[in-house]
């Protein structure tokens, strides 16, 4: 059995046989065309373009009535690109002048275009290089077809793909539409990220998908049995019978569970004994707001801003950031907690620090607030953008990875400086934006009371807190087994932070994975946590758990758990906690 990981879209599980769509452009042939054969080669190219055009038009005419409204517009874009001289005429010139074969002539022009798009600073406009690649890919597919190669093409697939999983390099919007109604189980692509057409349309189709699995085409063969687990971004190839049975059961559970949960959408997050709990969402991309709304989050407890900074040569300008923050603030009811840049470690920015070697790869290195304080030219535009955007909504600033009070003081001083600048420039901004700290370094957790005196809120980042407390390198597989959210030290630190917040009378939230895991909800309630922030997909689940819990009695039970000295029995105790009075 083989296990592959990529980026999961959705949370579902699919089990089925692979259909590998070989889009016919993995190996691009390169050869010279004799002078006498040139007109034939040009004709072959023109035929391919005509065939793609006819195919796109056919798809557009036959769009199902429930197709997302933008689908037709996407196909329009591809049709216009196909007719653009850069794509349909310049390769012809190259065939003519350089006596190259059609594939190679097209490839050389396409590469130039794609390189050009790569250099565009705006991430949205830059992502349009995928459209170029898709249109070119279709022409390449037709060219391969005309050479007698028989790529398995969507058009040749049967009308029902029940229990089959589509495996491809990339899916175009048109492909995804052609797949509609054919009942397949999932799709898996080697290209694409969380904002690719594939991902966006997959979400709208409600299909689980794994994208960004680079060599998937080479590893998976037609008819391989696959398990797709979108929640973990994993594809299991040729699983054995016990594993299969296990995932079938999980799949059934997931389906039943989803059906029940949707009933909770508009119910309040209130415990059995009437205490209201605040459930917030973690977001990254503007489209995450949809998920947040449909699950009824009270606001955003963690808005990760790194996305704006990644995969680009230069950091975004203050104005670009301002627009991005405004976009979120205008659409979210309730508070939006914007975490300042948490770059470094496993999240590297491509550019922006050209004069510095990439030494910040360590989780213990120059990252997050450390990096920001060492480079005010990176940090100040972000602070300015947030303070300006805060005029349009309920923004809060959250500083990641604080470890010393000095860092906090420096950050507060910078915020003061930025406010003074904006004041001088007479730019509209909100000077009263609440400022909070992420408590994820043990040093900060132990002395959370000192931080609490200077901050408006605290938020516990459990992922880093666990790895730092237990001295685990997250990228080292051999110590993964030590990662334990229920380690008494971790629980004690969490309790310390929550108490510090209560004593200083400021809110404490939690935005790590633990907050979105229903197995820990009661434990955290018992520790005094009242604000949970999680991936939008977890909101309904946690809401259900909150509604089935009774606060009275929890603190005492949790204290027993924290005082437990028998190793290994903590999980049993938490299980017991979760089973009591659950109806």
């Amino acid at each position, binding site marked *: 059995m083989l296990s592959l990981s990529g980026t999961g879209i959705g949370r579902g599980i699919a089990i089925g046989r692979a259909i590998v769509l070989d889009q016919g452009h993995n190996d691009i042939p390169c050869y010279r065309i004799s002078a006498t054969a040139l007109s034939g080669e040009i004709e072959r190219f023109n035929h391919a373009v005509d065939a793609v055009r006819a195919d796109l038009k056919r798809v557009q005419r036959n769009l199902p009535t429930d197709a997302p409204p933008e689908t037709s*517009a*996407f196909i329009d*874009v591809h049709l216009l690109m196909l007719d653009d001289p*850069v*794509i349909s005429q310049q390769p012809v010139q190259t065939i003519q002048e350089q006596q190259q074969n059609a594939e190679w002539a097209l490839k050389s022009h396409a590469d130039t275009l794609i390189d050009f*798009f790569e250099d565009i600073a705006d991430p949205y*406009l830059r992502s*349009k290089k995928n459209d170029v690649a898709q249109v070119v890919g279709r022409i390449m597919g037709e060219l391969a077809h005309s050479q007698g190669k028989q790529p398995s093409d969507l058009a040749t697939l049967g009308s029902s793909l029940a229990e089959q999983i589509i495996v491809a390099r990339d899916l175009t919007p048109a492909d995804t539409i052609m797949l509609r109604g054919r009942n397949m189980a999932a799709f898996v692509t080697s290209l694409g990220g969380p904002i690719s057409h594939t991902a966006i349309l997959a979400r709208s189709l409600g299909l689980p998908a794994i994208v960004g699995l680079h060599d998937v085409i080479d590893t998976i063969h037609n008819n391989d049995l696959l398990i797709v687990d979108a929640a973990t971004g994993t594809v299991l190839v040729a699983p054995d019978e016990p594993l299969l049975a296990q995932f079938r059961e999980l799949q059934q559970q997931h389906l039943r569970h989803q059906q029940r949960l949707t009933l909770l959408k508009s119910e309040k997050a209130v415990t059995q004994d009437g205490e209201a709990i605040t459930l917030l969402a973690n977001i990254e991309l503007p489209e995450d707001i949809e998920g947040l709304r449909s699950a009824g989050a009270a606001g955003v407890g963690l808005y990760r801003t790194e996305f704006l900074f990644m995969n680009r040569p230069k950091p975004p300008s203050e104005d670009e950031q301002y*627009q991005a923050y405004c*976009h979120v603030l205008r659409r979210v009811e309730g508070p939006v907690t914007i975490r300042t840049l948490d770059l470094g470690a496993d999240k590297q920015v491509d550019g922006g620090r050209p004069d510095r070697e990439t030494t910040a790869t360590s989780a213990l290195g120059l990252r997050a607030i450390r990096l920001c304080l060492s480079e005010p030219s990176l940090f100040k535009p972000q602070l300015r953008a947030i303070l300006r955007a805060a005029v349009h909504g309920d923004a809060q600033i959250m500083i990641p990875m604080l470890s010393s009070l000095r860092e906090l003081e420096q950050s507060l001083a910078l915020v003061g400086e930025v406010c003074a600048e904006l004041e001088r420039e007479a730019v509209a901004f909100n000077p009263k934006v609440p400022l909070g700290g992420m408590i994820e370094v043990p040093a900060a957790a132990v002395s959370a009371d000192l931080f609490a005196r200077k901050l408006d809120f605290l938020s516990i980042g459990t992922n880093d807190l666990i790895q730092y407390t237990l001295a685990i390198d997250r990228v080292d597989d051999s110590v993964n087994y030590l990662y334990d959210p229920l380690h008494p030290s971790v629980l004690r630190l969490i309790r310390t932070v929550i108490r510090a917040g209560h004593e200083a009378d400021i809110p404490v939230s939690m935005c790590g994975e633990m907050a979105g895991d229903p197995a820990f909800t009661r434990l955290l309630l018992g520790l005094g946590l009242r604000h949970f922030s999680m991936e939008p997909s977890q909101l309904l689940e946690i809401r259900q758990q909150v509604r089935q819990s009774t606060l009275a009695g929890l603190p005492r039970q949790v204290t027993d758990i924290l005082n437990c000295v028998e190793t290994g029995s903590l999980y049993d105790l938490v299980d017991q906690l979760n089973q009591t009075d659950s109806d």
Partner: protein
Amino acid sequence: MKLQRELQIVNRLGLHARACAKLVKTANQFESDIVLRQNEHQADAKSIMGLMMLAATQGTRLTVITSGADAEDAMTQVQHLINNRFEEDE
């Protein structure tokens, strides 16, 4: 006839693919040549690739030049489309 006008891209996503497609479709209705110029770059409004490669984000100022028999109508329509945020919400 030749007309020249300064316009600003006001929709949030800028000249993205679908906006470009609308602009090309509008431009194709006219005989006139229609060119968008941004500093030293310029693009034929009838070429979607050219427009996309301008990479004009929200706030970008462009010079629109229309020349030909129906230059005036062409300018009016292009201006309307850009100022109307390509019929997008924001």
